[in-house]
C-alpha cells in the first residue's frame, strides 16, 4: 500500500512539473489580458533549444538558459501581433504553435539530418535532498524529484508574491481587468502586456526544456505532444490563480498516475486500458463542470487595447 502511494505521488509530480511551468507562463500572459494559445509552441521551441544547446555545450543549465531566450524570442511576434497590431490573439497564438513545430522539426532535420536529435547525455536528473528524501511516501516524490520540480514550485510561490504583493503585479492584474482605468491611473497597458507575454514565453520554454533534458532525453516532433494545451486547461481549471493552477496541474498528474497505477495493479482485467487512459481527461472535464464552479476569466482577456475606446 505504501509502495502504491509512493508510486502514485512520484508519477503525479513527474507529470505535473512541465504542466505547472507552462501554465504559470500562461497565467502571466492571460492575467494581463492576452490569450496565449501558443503555450504548446513555446514549450516546443523550449524543448528543442534546450536539447540542441545541451548537446552542443554539454551543460543542461546553459540549455535551460538558451530555452528561456528562445521562448522570449518566439513570444515576441505573438506580443507584436496581438498588442501592437491588435490582431486576434487566438489566431496569433495558433500561428505560434505552427511556427514552433515547423521550425524546430525543420532545424532538427537540417542539423542532424534525422527526425530527432541525438540522445542528450548530460541531463538534469533527480536531485535528492538529504534527510528529507528519507521520509516515507512524501520523500521519494517531493524531495527526490528533478530540479525542474523545485523550480516549478518556486515559480508558483514567486508568481503569487509578484501578482498579489507587488505594485507591478497589481498593475498587471488591473491591465487584464480594466485597461482603461489602469491607463487613466498612469499605467502603460502596452508595456505591461509586452512584459507579461515575454515572461509567458520564458516560463513555457522552461516547461518544454523539462521534457527534453530531464524527463526525456531528446527532441522530436512528438516531445511536447499536446501538453501545452493541457497546461492551458489547467490554467482555466485553476481559475487563473497561481495556487489554483498548481492544484489543477497536480490534479491532472494525479489522474494520470491513477490510470497508470490502475494498469499495474491489474485493474485492466475489468476495465480496458483505453478507458483507463481516458480517465484523466474525463476527470478533468467532470471537475471542471461540476466542482470548480464558474471559472471567471480576467475581464479584458482577449480584447486588444485601443486607447480612448470603451
Amino acid at each position: 500500500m505504501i509502495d502504491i502511494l509512493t508510486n502514485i505521488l512520484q508519477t503525479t509530480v513527474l507529470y505535473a512539473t512541465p504542466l505547472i511551468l507552462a501554465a504559470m507562463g500562461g497565467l502571466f500572459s492571460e492575467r494581463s489580458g492576452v490569450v496565449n494559445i501558443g503555450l504548446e509552441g513555446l514549450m516546443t521551441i523550449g524543448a528543442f533549444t534546450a536539447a540542441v544547446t545541451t548537446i552542443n555545450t554539454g551543460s543542461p543549465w546553459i540549455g535551460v538558459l538558451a530555452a528561456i531566450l528562445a521562448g522570449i524570442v518566439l513570444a515576441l511576434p505573438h506580443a507584436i501581433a496581438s498588442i501592437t497590431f491588435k490582431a486576434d490573439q487566438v489566431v496569433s497564438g495558433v500561428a505560434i504553435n505552427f511556427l514552433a513545430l515547423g521550425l524546430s522539426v525543420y532545424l532538427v532535420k537540417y542539423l542532424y539530418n534525422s527526425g530527432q536529435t541525438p540522445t542528450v547525455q548530460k541531463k538534469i536528473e533527480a536531485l535528492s535532498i538529504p534527510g528529507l528524501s528519507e521520509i516515507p511516501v512524501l520523500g521519494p516524490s517531493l524531495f527526490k524529484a528533478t530540479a525542474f520540480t523545485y523550480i516549478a514550485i518556486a515559480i508558483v510561490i514567486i508568481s503569487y508574491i509578484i501578482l498579489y504583493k507587488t505594485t507591478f503585479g497589481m498593475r498587471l492584474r488591473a491591465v487584464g481587468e480594466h485597461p482603461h482605468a489602469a491607463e487613466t491611473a498612469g499605467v502603460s497597458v502596452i508595456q505591461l502586456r509586452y512584459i507579461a507575454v515575454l515572461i509567458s514565453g520564458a516560463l513555457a520554454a522552461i516547461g518544454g526544456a523539462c521534457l527534453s533534458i530531464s524527463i526525456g532525453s531528446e527532441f522530436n516532433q512528438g516531445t511536447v505532444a499536446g501538453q501545452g494545451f493541457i497546461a492551458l486547461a489547467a490554467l482555466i481549471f485553476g481559475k487563473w490563480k497561481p495556487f489554483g493552477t498548481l492544484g489543477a496541474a497536480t490534479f491532472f498528474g494525479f489522474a494520470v498516475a491513477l490510470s497508470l497505477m490502475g494498469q499495474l495493479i491489474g485493474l485492466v482485467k475489468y476495465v480496458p486500458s483505453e478507458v483507463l487512459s481516458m480517465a484523466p481527461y474525463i476527470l478533468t472535464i467532470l471537475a471542471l463542470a461540476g466542482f470548480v464552479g464558474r471559472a471567471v476569466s480576467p475581464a479584458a482577456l482577449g480584447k486588444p487595447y485601443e486607447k480612448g475606446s470603451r
Partner: protein
Amino acid sequence: MKKRAWLSLLLSSVLVLAVGCSGQKGAEGGGDKAAGFKLGLVTDTGGLNDQSFNQISWEGAKRAQKELGVDIQPLESKRDDDYIPNLTKFAREKRDIIWATGFKFEKVIPEVAEQFPNVHFGIVDSNLGGKIPKNVVAVTFKEHEGSFLAGVAAALTTKTNKIGFIGGISSPLIKKFESGFRAGVKAANPKAQVTVAYAESFNDVTKGRSLAKNMYNSGIDVIYHAAGGVGKGLFDEVKTRDKGKYWAIGVDMDQSGLAPDHTLTSMVKRVDTAIFNITKDLKEKKLETGKEVQLGFKENALDLAKSQHLKPDVMKKIEEYKQKIINGEIKVPKTEAELASFK
C-alpha cells in the same frame, strides 16, 4: 563551407521535388537506361538517417545495389502529405519495386497501387488488413517469435522473478509482442510473473518513464517494451538505476545506445534482410506478389541483438528455444487466447 554545401543540396532537392510534382519529365538522370532492375524507396517523415526503420530499410536497398547490381533511389517524405506524390513519382519512372517503409503507408499504398497496376510495391510492417492488391507485397515479421526469445532472456535474468512489459497502443500487433513475450517467460521460468501495461500512446515519453519507474519501484527488474517513442522513457528511467540490477529490453533494432549499461538485449527486426531478400526474389521472378510474406528466424529476419550482458548459459538456452521455434516444436502464441492455451 560545409553548411553551404548542405544548403545547396537541400535547395536542389527541393527543386527536384518541385519539378517532379509538377509532372514534367526528364529531371531525373539515369532513369532511361532500362535494362537493369530499379528500386525506389520512400521513407516516412523520419528520413533516411532516423536510426530506425527508414535507415535499416535503406541498408537493405544498398545491399541489393552492391550484390545484385540493382539501381536504387531514395525519396524522403517531409510531411505525411508527401507519401502519395513520392510513390507516384517512382511509379511514373516505372521502377520495378517501390518500397514504402512502415505501416504509415497502409492507407496510401492500395490507392497508388491501383493507379499503377504494372508497377510493384512493397510495404513493410503491415498486411494492409488482409486486402493486398495484386501488385503489392506486404512484409510482416513474426514479432511474437522474437518477443518469445526476449521473454526467455528476461526470465533467465530476473532475480526478483518479476518482469514488466510496456505496450504502446493496444492493438492486435502489439498484443502479438505481449503474447509472445509472456509465453517466453512462462516457458523458461514458470515462477516469474509478468506485469503488463499499455501507455495508449506511441510518443508520450513521460508516460513511458512513469510506467517504468512504477514497475521498477515495485520490484520488477527486467522490462521489455513495444511502445515506439514511449519506450525511450523506459531507457531514461533505467539509466538512473543501479547497473547490473535493473534491465531494459529494446525493440525493432539494437537500442543499447540509449542505455549501454542497462540494455539486456533488443528484439531486432532485420528490415534490411527483408528488403534485400524480397527484392532479390522479385528480380529473379521467384516471388508472387499480392500476398503477405511473414518473416521469422528461418529467414534470418528476426534476432536478439548481441549483448555482453547476456550470460553464456542464457545465450545457450536462447539458442535452444530458437531452434525449437524454427523446427516447429514450439508454436508461439500470437494472441491472448492462444497464450491461455500455451502449455
